[in-house]
C-alpha cells in the first residue's frame, strides 16, 4: 500500500502538482488518469523518487520515502519495478540480459539461477523465443513486455507503469493491460498505472484517480465512472460520441 499526502511540485515557479493526496491499495490496479499535461508523469516521478516534491509525504507501507536516508531509500528501490513510457530497455544488451540485469546487480543467485529466473519472467510475458534478440530488433509491444519482465524480475512489491500502452494497437494494449492486472493479483503488488486510454479505464480500473490541472478532481472505481456527475470527469472520459452512447447504455443497464 502506498499513501501520498499533499504532494506539491513546481518547476521554475509554475506549480504542476497542487497538493495531491491518495491511497493506493495492494492487489488491485490503481489508475491515474488525466489530460496530457495534467501532471501524471510528474506525480509518478515524485512517488518513485526521480523528482523531489517540495512538500508532502509518500508512505510505502508506512515508511516515509521523502525523509528516508539515502541508504534506506536504495534498499526500498529494490522493491520497486517501473515500466517507462518508452520501455527504456538497455540497447546494448539482449532481451535476456535486460531481464537478468536487476538480478545481476542485486540478487545473490548463481549464474544458472539468474538465467532460470529471467527465463521464467520472459515466459510469463510470452517472450521466451525472443530472448537472444536485441531491443532494436523487436516491436514496440514486445519491448513493453520485456520491460514488464525486467520490472518483475526481483519480485517487486510495487509496480509503476507510465502509459504502458501508449503507441500500441488496441489489441496489444489489452494484452499488456491483462498482463499487468494478472501479475498484480498474482503477487499482491501495489500497482500504479498512468494512462489516458479509455479501454484501460473500463478494463482494469479497480481504482481510478482523476487528476485535473495538478489536483485530484475525482476518485472511484470503473463502475462509478458511469454514474459520476462530475462535469470535468465526464468531459474528459466521455469526450467522443461513441463513448457517450456507451455511457447511456451502461447507465440504462445499471438503473434497469
Amino acid at each position, binding site marked *: 500500500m502506498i499513501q501520498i499526502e499533499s504532494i506539491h511540485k513546481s518547476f521554475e515557479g509554475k506549480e504542476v502538482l497542487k497538493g495531491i493526496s491518495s491511497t493506493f491499495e495492494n492487489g488491485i490496479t490503481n489508475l491515474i488518469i488525466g489530460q496530457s499535461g495534467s501532471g501524471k508523469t510528474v506525480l509518478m516521478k515524485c512517488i*518513485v523518487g*526521480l523528482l523531489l516534491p517540495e512538500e508532502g509525504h509518500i508512505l510505502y507501507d508506512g515508511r516515509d520515502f521523502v525523509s528516508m536516508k539515502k541508504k534506506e531509500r*536504495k*534498499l*526500498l*528501490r*529494490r522493491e*520497486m*519495478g*517501473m515500466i*517507462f*513510457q*518508452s520501455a*527504456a*530497455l*538497455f*540497447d546494448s544488451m539482449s532481451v535476456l540480459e535486460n531481464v537478468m*540485469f*536487476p538480478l*545481476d*546487480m*542485486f540478487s545473490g543467485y548463481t549464474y544458472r539461477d539468474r538465467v532460470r529466473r529471467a527465463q521464467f519472467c520472459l515466459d510469463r510475458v510470452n517472450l521466451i523465443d525472443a530472448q537472444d534478440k536485441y531491443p532494436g530488433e523487436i516491436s514496440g509491444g514486445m519491448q513493453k513486455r520485456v520491460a514488464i519482465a525486467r520490472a518483475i524480475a526481483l519480485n517487486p512489491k510495487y509496480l*509503476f507503469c507510465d502509459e504502458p500502452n501508449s503507441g500500441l494497437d488496441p489489441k496489444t494494449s489489452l494484452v499488456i493491460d491483462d498482463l499487468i492486472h494478472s501479475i498484480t493479483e498474482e503477487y499482491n503488488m501495489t500497482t500504479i498505472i498512468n494512462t489516458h486510454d479509455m479501454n484501460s479505464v473500463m478494463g482494469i480500473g479497480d481504482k481510478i484517480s482523476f487528476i485535473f490541472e495538478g489536483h485530484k478532481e475525482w476518485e472511484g472505481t470503473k463502475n462509478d465512472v458511469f454514474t459520476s456527475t462530475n462535469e470535468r470527469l465526464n468531459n474528459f472520459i466521455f469526450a467522443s460520441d461513441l463513448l457517450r452512447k456507451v455511457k447511456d447504455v451502461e447507465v440504462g443497464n445499471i438503473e434497469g
Partner: protein
Amino acid sequence: MFITKSINTFGSYLMLMGKVFARPERMRSFFKQYTKEMSQLGVDSIGIVLLISFFIGAVICIQIKLNIQTPWMPRFVTGYTTREIMLLEFSSSIMCLILAGKVGSNIASELGTMRVTQQIDALEIMGVNSANFLILPKIAALVTMIPFLVTFSIAAGIIGAYATGWFANVINPEDLTYGLQYSFTEWFVWCGIIKSLFFAFIIASVSSFYGYTVEGGSIEVGKSSTNAVVHSSILILFSDLILTQLLTE
C-alpha cells in the same frame, strides 16, 4: 552572466564526479563494463591513432628536411626535431585533441541517448548509482588505454618518418637514425604519457558530464556531443599549457 553560468556548470560537474567516484555496487559488473569500454574507447581508436601519427611523422620529416634543413646544418636536425615534436606535443596533446573528437562525441551521444530514452532513469529506479555504473568504467578504461595509444602514436610517427626515407628518398635513413637517437631524454616520453593521463581524464569525464546531463530530445543530444568535444578540447589545450610548464621546468 557568463561567469555565473560557468561556475554553475563547474559545480554540477563536481557534483556528478562526487557520484561517479564511489565503490561500484558489484565488482563483477564493473569489470565487465570496464573491459567493454577499454575495447570500445581504446582498442577501437588504435586504427585512427596509427593512421594519423604515421602521416604526421612523415610530413614533419619532409617539411623539416626540405624547408628547414640547409647543407650547413648538422645532419641530425631532421631526425631530432621530428622525434621531439612527436614526443613533446603531437603524440600526447594533439592526439588527445583528435581523440576528444572521436571518443568524446561517442561518450556524450551514448549517455545522452540513454538519458532521453529513460534508460538512466530505469537504472536509478532499480537503485543503481547510474553515474557510477556508467561513467566510472569509461574514465578508468580511457585512462588505462591512453599510455598505449601514446606509445603507438610515437612509434607510428617514427615509422612514418622512415617511410619518407625508404620510399621517397627524402632523407637518408642513417641520418634519420642518427638524429632520432641524438641527445635522447627519456623523461620526455614520460612527460607525454603523464600529460595524456590528464587529458584522458578530461575527455572521459567532461564528455560524460555533457551526455549524462542532457534534457530533452535528439537535438539536445546532438548539442551535448558538440559541447563535449568543444569543452574537452579547450580544457586539454589549457591544461597542456600548465602541465608543460610544470613537467619541463
